[in-house]
C-alpha cells in the first residue's frame, strides 16, 4: 500500500512526478529505450521510429483536442506542411537538419494559426468539418503545386548529419527520434503546469466560463492550434529524415484519423496516454500481420485478407474503446496502479 505520500507544499502538488516511484519508472523506461537499438532487429527499429514520430504528432493533437477541446481532422495536413517545409529548407536552402526540422515546425505553426482562425466563431462539430476541409485542401496543394512540392514524384532529402555523424540508417535515426520525442513529451507535460496550459484546460472545460474568468478565448485557441501544429510539423520534419523522401500520399486524411485514434485509444488529455496510444495503434496492425502470416500454413491465401481485416480491427478498436473504455489506456493504467497502491485492501 502506498503510504507516506503527503503533499506539504504547493510545489509538491504541482510536481511533474507525484511519487518517487513514478520518477524511477521514467528512468527505467528511458534506459530501456536507450538500450533498445542495441538489442532489436531492423524491422523493430523501423517500427520504433514510426512510433516515435507518431507519438510527437499525436502529442500535438492531444494538446489541441484532449486539452483544449478543439477537434482537428487536419493533423496529417499540418505534418505534411512541416515535412515539405523541412524538405524544401534542406534541399533548396541547403540548411542542416537541426535548422530544417524547426523550420518545418515553424511553417506548420503558421498553417495552424490560419486554420485555427475560424475556431472563435465555430466550434465542436463545425470546427471538425472546417479542419476536414483544410486537410482536403492541403492534400490538393501537395499534389498540385508541382513547382514547390514536386507533385506526386515528391522531394528527396539527404540523411541528417551532426558533426560528421550521419543518421543514415534506421538504427541511427532512432536516436534522433527518441531525443526529439523525449524533449517534446517533457515540453507538453510541463506546458500544462504553466498559465497557458491551464488556460487551455479551462477553455476545454467550458469556454464561456473561461472567458468570464479573463482568458482571451481567441488568443488561447489560436495558441493551442499553433503549438499543436508545431508538434505535427516537427513530426513531419523527422518523417522526412526517416523516409528520406516526402510524397503527397504520406499525409492522407486516414493518417489524421489514425492520430485521432491514437489519442482516443491512449486517453484524451493524457501525455502518458498519448505514448500508449501511439504504440498500441501502430503495433496492433503489425500483430495482426504476424498472426495472419502464421495462418498461411493452413490457409495459403490468408494474406489477401490482411488489408480488410486491418480496417475492421482499426474501426473496432476505436468503437470498442469509445464504448467500453472512453478514457483510454491511460485510465486502464491508472486503475491497475491504484490496485497496487491500495493492495491488500480492495478499492
Amino acid at each position: 500500500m502506498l503510504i507516506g505520500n503527503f503533499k506539504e507544499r504547493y510545489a509538491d502538488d504541482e510536481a511533474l512526478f507525484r511519487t518517487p516511484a513514478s520518477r524511477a519508472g521514467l528512468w527505467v523506461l528511458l534506459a530501456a529505450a536507450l538500450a533498445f537499438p542495441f538489442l532489436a532487429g531492423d524491422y523493430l527499429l523501423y517500427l520504433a521510429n514510426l512510433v516515435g514520430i507518431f507519438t510527437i504528432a499525436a502529442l500535438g493533437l492531444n494538446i489541441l483536442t484532449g486539452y483544449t477541446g478543439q477537434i482537428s481532422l487536419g493533423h496529417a495536413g499540418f505534418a505534411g506542411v512541416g515535412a515539405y517545409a523541412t524538405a524544401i529548407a534542406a534541399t533548396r536552402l541547403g540548411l542542416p537538419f537541426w535548422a530544417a526540422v524547426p523550420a518545418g515546425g515553424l511553417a506548420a505553426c503558421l498553417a495552424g494559426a490560419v486554420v485555427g482562425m475560424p475556431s472563435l466563431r465555430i466550434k465542436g462539430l463545425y470546427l471538425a468539418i472546417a479542419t476536414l476541409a483544410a486537410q482536403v485542401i492541403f492534400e490538393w496543394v501537395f499534389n498540385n503545386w508541382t513547382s514547390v512540392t514536386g507533385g506526386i514524384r515528391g522531394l528527396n532529402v539527404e540523411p541528417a548529419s551532426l558533426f560528421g555523424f550521419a543518421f543514415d540508417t534506421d538504427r541511427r535515426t532512432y536516436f534522433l527520434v527518441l531525443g526529439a520525442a523525449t524533449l517534446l513529451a517533457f515540453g507538453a507535460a510541463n506546458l500544462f503546469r504553466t498559465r497557458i496550459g491551464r488556460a487551455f484546460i479551462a477553455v476545454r472545460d467550458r469556454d464561456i466560463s473561461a472567458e468570464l474568468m479573463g482568458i482571451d478565448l481567441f488568443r488561447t485557441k489560436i495558441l493551442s492550434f499553433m503549438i499543436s501544429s508545431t508538434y505535427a510539423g516537427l513530426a513531419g520534419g523527422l518523417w522526412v529524415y526517416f523516409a528520406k523522401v516526402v510524397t503527397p500520399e504520406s499525409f492522407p486524411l486516414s493518417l489524421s484519423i489514425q492520430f485521432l485514434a491514437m489519442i482516443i485509444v491512449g486517453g484524451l488529455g493524457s501525455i502518458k496516454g498519448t505514448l500508449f496510444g501511439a504504440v498500441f495503434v501502430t503495433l496492433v496492425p503489425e500483430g495482426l500481420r504476424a498472426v495472419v502470416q502464421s495462418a498461411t500454413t493452413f490457409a495459403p491465401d490468408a494474406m489477401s485478407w490482411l488489408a480488410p481485416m486491418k480496417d475492421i480491427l482499426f474501426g473496432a478498436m476505436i468503437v470498442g474503446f469509445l464504448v467500453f473504455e472512453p478514457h483510454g489506456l491511460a485510465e486502464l493504467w491508472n486503475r491497475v496502479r491504484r490496485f497496487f497502491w491500495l493492495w491488500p485492501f480492495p478499492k
Partner: protein
Amino acid sequence: MDHFLQIAASGVVTGGIYALIAIGFVVVYKATGVINFATGELMMLGAFFGWTAMTVLGLPFAAALVVAALGAAGVGALVERVVLRPMLGQRPISIIMVTIGLSAVFKGIAQIAWGGEYRSFPPIFPRKPVELGPIILPSRQAWPFLIALAAIVALAAFFRFTRTGTAMRATADDQATAFGMGIDIRRVFSLSWVLAAVTAALAGVVVGIIGGISPQLGAVGLRIFPVVILGGLDSVGGALVGGILIGVLENLAGGYLDPLFPGAGIKEVAPFFALVLILMVRPWGLFGTREIERL
C-alpha cells in the same frame, strides 16, 4: 451558352444525388446530434446489396432497389442500437470518432464479402440519351437522377403527411416536449438511422450505376460536408438546395477552371474551398438555425 447549360445540367444531376444523401445525414443530425462520417460507407454497402440482388440473385432492378433499402435499413437499425445509443450525449470528438470507426469496419467487411475489385451494374435503362432543348443528358445520368428525385419527394411527403414523420419532426424541434407528448424518442432515433441508411443506400445504387462500385465508393461521402454546411446542418430543405448548388458549383469549376489548370482536379477541391468560405461568413449555413449559447 449551350456549354454553360450543359455543364449546369449535369451539375444539377450530381447535386440531386448529393441532396438525397444530405437529407439522410441531416435527419440523423436533427434527431440525435450525430455527425455521421459513415454515410459514404452506408452508400457503398447499399450499392453492393443492390448489385448482389441484381447480378447474383437475378432480381429485376426495382426489386434490387428494395433489397438495397431493406439491407441498409437493417444495418442502420443495428448500428444505432448497438453502437450509437450508448454514445448519446457524449463529446463531439467521441461521436465523430465512433462513426469514423464504423466506416472503417464497413469498408473492411465489404472488402471481405465482395472483394476489392471494381464492378458495374448490368445495363438497366434505355440507352437513348435524354434531350431537354439544348441539353443532352446520357441516360445513365438522367434516370438515376429521377430515382433520386422520386426518393426526395417520397421523403418529403413522409415527413409532411404521416404520423411517424410528424413525430420525427416534433422530436427534432423539441425533444423534451415531444417526449412529454408521448412520442417514443428511442424509436425516433432508431427510425432516423434507418431513414439515413435507406437514403444512403438508394444514393449508393444511383452512384454505382453512374460510376461503378468498389469498396472505395464511400469516398464520395466526404462531399456531403460542403453540402450540409452550405444548406445548414439542421435543415432538410437546406440539404436539398445545398446539394444542387454544390453539384452545380463543382461542375462549373470543373468545366471552366480545369482546362486552365490541366490535371489539377479543381472539380474535387472546389466544394471544400466553398465550405471554408461559408464557415467564415455564415457558419450556420443558408437555412440552418443559428446557435445561441447560454450559460
